[in-house]
């Protein structure tokens, strides 16, 4: 076990898989010589050479299209879309081509590919470089959607995503890049579709993803200590596949559900999970299901505004205290 940053765990995950499988390739803008604008992929070019690790032009459709075509033709490519906001510039290739081709061809085409991207706010980058777009991807049948909250999960889930034979949108929380944690040195692969439950409080369950997990954990701690409210926190880790059985179990154990999500309010994963719970576990519920989200506005840039817009530990605590 070594202590790695979330940032460094990205390169560690890719390197592990490139070493294991010669068909793993990695492309993107400024990813090779410069090691990525978030410095997540440093050293890969040096280790794996300029054929397997390549810089591209600023052509997101070409990047994702090339990754798709290569996956059809025998590679297992990883493409970087620098900021997840830029998925919008290649959404046709992602949502209409990558996601649908296996289905439309009745299984003739297999697309073992990963699209990595820096997701979410917190760096005061403004509305076009800070979006949490996990719900965009979740809304599209045919995409797996993974979003780790710890360095160990970055490595393990990225490895699993690369090994997966389906297209995976892998969203790294840019606000977590500098965070640190223990990461297994050895081969490390975490299966997709398993949520992790922290704590065993019986009062409420906080369901969170990626950047919201550390906040939910801190809120849970404060709720216990300051308000004597027992929480359990579900770290979803992937939205597709979705570990509903773990969620429903936690709902059953607590009866009160709070989702904590970074994306703007409407049609987020919180709404999806809330509505599944309202359909399937209605009689387990002791009260309303509450969603804590960024308000339905584009994200503002200034520090004070951004901090207020994105769910904070404070807001989670206050909401639970008030609603519970």
């Amino acid at each position, binding site marked *: 076990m070594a202590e790695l940053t979330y940032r460094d765990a990205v390169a560690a995950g890719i390197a592990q898989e490139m070493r294991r499988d010669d068909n793993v*390739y990695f492309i993107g803008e400024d990813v090779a010589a410069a090691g990525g604008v978030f410095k997540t992929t440093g050293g890969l070019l040096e280790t794996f050479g300029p*054929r397997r690790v*390549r810089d*591209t*032009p600023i*052509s*997101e*459709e*070409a*990047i*994702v*299209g*090339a*990754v*798709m*075509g*290569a*996956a*059809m*033709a*025998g*590679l297992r*490519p990883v493409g970087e879309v620098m900021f997840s906001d830029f998925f919008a510039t290649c959404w*046709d*290739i992602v949502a*209409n*081509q990558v996601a649908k*081709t*296996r*289905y*439309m*061809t*009745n*299984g*003739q*085409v*297999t697309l*073992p590919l990963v699209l990595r991207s820096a997701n979410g706010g917190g760096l005061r980058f403004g509305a076009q470089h800070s979006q949490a777009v996990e719900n965009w991807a979740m809304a599209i*049948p*045919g995409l797996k959607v993974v979003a780790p909250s710890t360095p160990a999960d970055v490595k393990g889930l990225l490895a699993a995503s690369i090994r*997966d*034979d*389906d297209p995976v949108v892998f969203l790294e929380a840019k606000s977590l890049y500098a965070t640190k944690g223990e990461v297994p040195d050895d081969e490390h692969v975490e299966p997709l*579709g398993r949520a992790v439950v922290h704590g065993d409080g019986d009062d409420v369950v906080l369901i969170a993803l990626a950047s919201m997990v550390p906040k939910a954990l801190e809120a849970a701690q404060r709720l216990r200590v300051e308000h004597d409210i027992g929480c359990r926190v579900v770290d979803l880790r992937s939205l*597709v*596949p*979705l*570990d*509903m*059985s773990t969620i429903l179990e936690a709902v059953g154990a607590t009866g009160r559900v709070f989702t904590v999500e970074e994306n703007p309010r409407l049609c987020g994963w919180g709404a999806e999970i809330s509505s599944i719970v309202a359909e399937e576990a209605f009689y387990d519920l002791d009260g309303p299901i509450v969603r804590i989200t960024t308000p339905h506005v584009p994200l503002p840039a200034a520090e004070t505004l951004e901090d207020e817009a994105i769910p904070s530990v404070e807001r989670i605590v206050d909401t639970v205290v008030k609603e519970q």
Partner: protein
Amino acid sequence: MERPEGWADEAKLDETTRLDLYRKQSAIRQFEQRAYDLFLQNLVKGTSHLSLGQEAVAAGFGAAMRYDDFSFCTYRGHAHTLVRGASMTGLMAELLGRSNGILAGKGGSMHLTSTEHYAMGSYAIVGAHLPIAAGAAWAAQERGTGQVAVCFFGDGTTNIGAFHEAINLATVWKLPVVFVCENNLYMEYTPISSVTAVEHPAAQRAAAYGLEPLIVDGNDVDEVYGIATTYIERARAGEGPALIEAKTYRKGGHSRADPAKYRPPEEVESWLARDPIDLYRARLLELGFEAAVLDDIDAQVLVEVNRATEEAKAAPPPSKDLIYTDVWADGGSQWRN
């Protein structure tokens, strides 16, 4: 435009190739005429896009490709899929939405694919398949398979962003991909000239990617075969991509919904006079081929088309369970446990 060196000389084409070119065109023609008949009988559901009149392009390239070269085409893709060797029954049945369709009815006429024949799909959103074809070429390059990707698209496609991104990437990475613009003068109902900054929408843009401007008579299958062979083999030899503009014309409307009234009658007439199959038949006869040989090919094709039609019509619609299959590589569609 000068004929580049090494452009296969049509005068030298051997007999087998010539008959193959004839057969491929005949197959496309008869298949599509049948599809049209079935549409009139209300058996083809959804949309369909015929390339009657454009047969020489798919036939010429199809004959020039190695069996394992990748091909990518559009919703107007019956021809391009057929020439790779895909099952006629499978294609016909797909148009009819039957269980023995090549996609079991799940994809429909706009997504014909036969990966077994390296026909890597028909793409229904303009431009998307150009970068995808580049990606397949990239894989071939890296894996050293010697495969080339051939990517067909229309004149209208030259104005969408993906065209630009794909060709630039292909040149920079020197990918073995040949981009083929079938310039049939029209988008859906709008003439390409009315919305395009240059007269030759592909050829006059080649220089923007460091490529040669290449135009070919898309109604002359020998010419098409010649240029196809030349540039596919150049790509295979590691000399990078090409962008070829084939001038041609569709006899009918854009899709089944379109009577194509927007085209000047003289234009239509002059192109109908240059039907690629009539032209080719005349050339072959002139070169000494026997009419009976050609008739025999047509007859064989007809038998095949009849069989395909019967097999397709006889098949049941797809089972409803298929709705839930093959979203994922595990064969299913579960997104939760």
